């Protein structure tokens, strides 16, 4: 039985299997990983090249595809004003 971690996505708590990328965890809920005033984006390159999976993690802008989902993480797919 895999160990589980608790994370928050856009204010909603989730229990997910440990040892996954934030991208994988987001995609389990929805194909949209990023919401801006210009529209929505999903995962594209999955390897840190296209930079379209920038999400807010605990106040920092991080790439969902390169970041491991760790217990207690607060993830927001919505970008604050001033960013694209």
């Amino acid at each position: 039985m895999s160990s589980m971690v608790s994370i928050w996505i856009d204010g909603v708590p989730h229990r997910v299997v440990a040892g996954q990328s934030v991208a994988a965890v987001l995609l389990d809920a929805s194909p949209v990983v990023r919401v801006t005033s210009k529209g929505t984006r999903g995962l594209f390159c999955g390897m840190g090249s296209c930079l379209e999976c920038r999400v807010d993690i605990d106040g920092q802008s991080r790439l969902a595809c390169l970041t491991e989902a760790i217990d207690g993480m607060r993830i927001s797919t919505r970008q604050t004003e001033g960013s694209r």
Partner: protein
Amino acid sequence: MNETDVIVIGAGPAGLETARVLGEHLAVILVDENVRVGGQLTRQRFNAQPGLESTLPASVDLRLGWTALGWTPQGALIGRNADTVESLSAPVVVGALGAREYVEPLPGWLLPGAMTVGGAQTLLKGSGRVPFRRVVVDGTGPLPFAAAAQFAAAGVEVVALLGGLGGIAPLRVWPNLVRGGAALMQGARSSWHLARHRVPVHPRGRVLRVLGTDRVEGVEVELKPGGPRSELQCDAVLFSHGFSSANDLLVRRGAEVMLDVDGTTQLIRDDACQTTVPGLYAAGDCAGVLGGPTAVLEGRIVAEVILARHGIATDARALVRLRRKVASLGAFQSAVKQISVTRSRSTLARDVVVCRCEGVTCGDIQDAVAAGVTSQPGIKLWTRAGMGPCQGRSCDRVIRDLARTPSPRPALPGSLQFPAKPLPLSEVASTRFTAQEGESP
């Protein structure tokens, strides 16, 4: 503090091999922006234990989650992890940055659910499953062929594979194909999985348009060139239309490149894998996309060359054998390329977005070219194409293709600006910048 002899950028197949060989004799720093080593081709589960890291000598200074950002004027490498921005200095640097996938723009390709084949494979390798039920795979070559088989074996419904390996190989290509050995076996296994899961394969088909309002709901396809169009329902479409070497960081350092016929840039190296910048070497796919086995061999060649430069005895005959094996694998790769159906670049519609970051369309670029702005840097300044966060990594090939003028001089390659990846000002202000005396970005 010990001085570093070699910095290796990238811990994929090439970089790991270089660090493994050098680490026995020299002070090596190995950096990679991923949280695990392995790169794309030997990607591990996030929680794999013991992991490929354990194959490195204990003396190697391994820094994971470390993103390279650029260079100081003195040639030190600037980069960051979560806490610190710093510069690393060594007389020898090996770039093993790999390659990235190329996707040709088409209508609807921005929709959530449309992604690269590699991106979907990363999900499968990283967490053991793919978060889609029905996928269409579109692309020619061994990667989409093998990936479609992997997804089918993992329980995903592969609605169709458009492209794959193309038709039967011409007879002249077989002698080189046979040298492929293990790769041929992989091809046979993939064929078996595709047949077993009854995946429809259309070697000359392609996706014309991605359908959906807020996410991928289906695709419009032609199953053969100029044939009747039909629609397939799916919740993800996976594209693989080629590869580009990730050499931008090295070009930023001053390494010269040449333009290849397919619009990609290729690092100019001598037969010791050294770039035109003395002390800067390149190994693996970032110096020409030839795949994993070649990357490992090049990683070893670079390590042996550097050891020889340090006066550490190496086996000269082994080096010759390595070089011969690289040449043989190169021949296999080009044979595979010959049997993959080559797609002619379709004419892009004016309203198709070319620069994903900035939303610049094909029409915007064509208007710029018609107005006399024909160079790639000029188009970047005029339209903002290539000015977004990815700095042209997703779109440089298409912009270069649209920028071509009738004159014989090729359009200039785009150039990377510092920082290579986004660096919020707040993080620079609040973190320590450690640099050697006299240096600045």
